């Protein structure tokens, strides 16, 4: 016992540990205690026991919601910059598609390119889904005639313990959960009419979700691949 108060004060190290947890030690005494704590497992256990017991008193303290700006400040400090939302992560792709569509409209509108609607309707849309960090890649095709969407992993594997989910991101719209990628073989799904009509120019994304946590509202796990449907 390197910090001895037994001559003047009741108790010993255990009481000192309690005072330490309460924040009642100060100055030289605090520094001496922390120096001893660093190399004394029994004292560390005593501090942990007091912290656990005294935390019962925290239940008396009412919860108070912090102002919304606090989370933004914390995220900027933690992540280095305002974190992109799911939608913003895909935005460059969708913006590219919108620009291409606008350009096509201008070109056909001024008669530079002959309209070829029947051909375009029949051809499938294809997408290559890649990751920024070399995680998973997929190829996907959408057949307008049958409204069938097919997607298959072409490289990489989900992170351990994660399951891949496929999302459609219609231009200017919110992500829609398409379904879980099978462990092997292609994902196939006939899309409902409203979603099928939005596939031209839409983005596709794959998120890696922890088991049992997927929410149809938005991905909770990281986006491991993304891409955009383009005309053949």
């Amino acid at each position, binding site marked *: 016992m390197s910090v001895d108060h037994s001559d003047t004060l*009741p108790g010993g190290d255990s009481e000192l540990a*309690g005072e330490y947890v309460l924040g009642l030690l100060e100055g030289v005494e605090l520094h001496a205690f922390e120096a001893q704590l660093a190399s004394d497992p029994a004292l560390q256990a005593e501090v942990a026991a007091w912290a656990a017991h005294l935390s019962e008193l925290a239940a008396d303290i009412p*919860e108070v919601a912090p102002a919304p700006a606090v989370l933004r400040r914390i995220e900027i400090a933690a992540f280095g910059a305002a974190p992109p939302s799911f939608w913003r992560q895909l935005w460059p792709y969708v913006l590219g598609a919108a620009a291409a569509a606008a350009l096509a409209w201008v070109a056909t509108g001024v008669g530079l390119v002959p309209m070829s609607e029947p051909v375009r309707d029949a051809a499938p849309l294809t997408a290559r889904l890649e990751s920024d960090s070399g995680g998973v890649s997929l190829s996907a095709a959408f057949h307008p005639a049958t409204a069938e969407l097919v997607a298959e992993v072409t490289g990489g594997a989900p992170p351990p313990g994660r399951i891949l989910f496929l999302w459609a991101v219609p231009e200017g719209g919110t992500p829609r959960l398409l379904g879980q990628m099978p462990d092997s073989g292609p994902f196939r799904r006939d899309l409902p009419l409203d979603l099928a009509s939005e596939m031209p120019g839409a983005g596709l994304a794959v998120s890696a979700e922890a088991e049992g946590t997927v929410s149809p509202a938005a991905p*909770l796990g990281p986006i491991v691949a993304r891409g955009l449907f383009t005309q053949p």
Partner: protein
Amino acid sequence: MAVSEIEALLARIAGGERTAFRSFYALTSARLFGVCLGVLGDRPRAEEALQQVYLRIWEQADRYRVTGQEPMVWLVTLARDAAIDCKRREARRPADAAPVDLDDLLPDTGPGDRTPDAGPLRLACRMVLPPDLTAMLRRAYARGESYETLARDAGVSRDTARQLMRRGLKSLRAELDR
């Protein structure tokens, strides 16, 4: 909020997952902000302490397992430590923001406290501590008061306050060990 849910989120935060961090903040920030506000007494300083707490969680979520503590014990300890550090640093600087009413924040339920979920500590307090010492302990914990303040409010000397507190801690420890 389930322990397993918080632990699962901490594991994902340790893996650098930002969405997990946001879910975790949504679940825990009101509790931890309450703890900071109890100690510091005004929102700007409590927000500053809260920011330090969550930065530490983001950077050191992997250390949680090493401590072997319950997640809420670990979190509340982080929040109290950050708030008490902040209080000490700025002890010489008067708060310029309007203080919150601490008596509203911390209703003194006193020795007749019949909280249904009273745990071992509260039961031990009822068994072995005089009511005024229980109140002193609660104020030291929830408001991070120093011996000087506790002694002044109790109308005793600092040495007497400390002797009372240490005697109380000794009795509590013995009761908790039974």
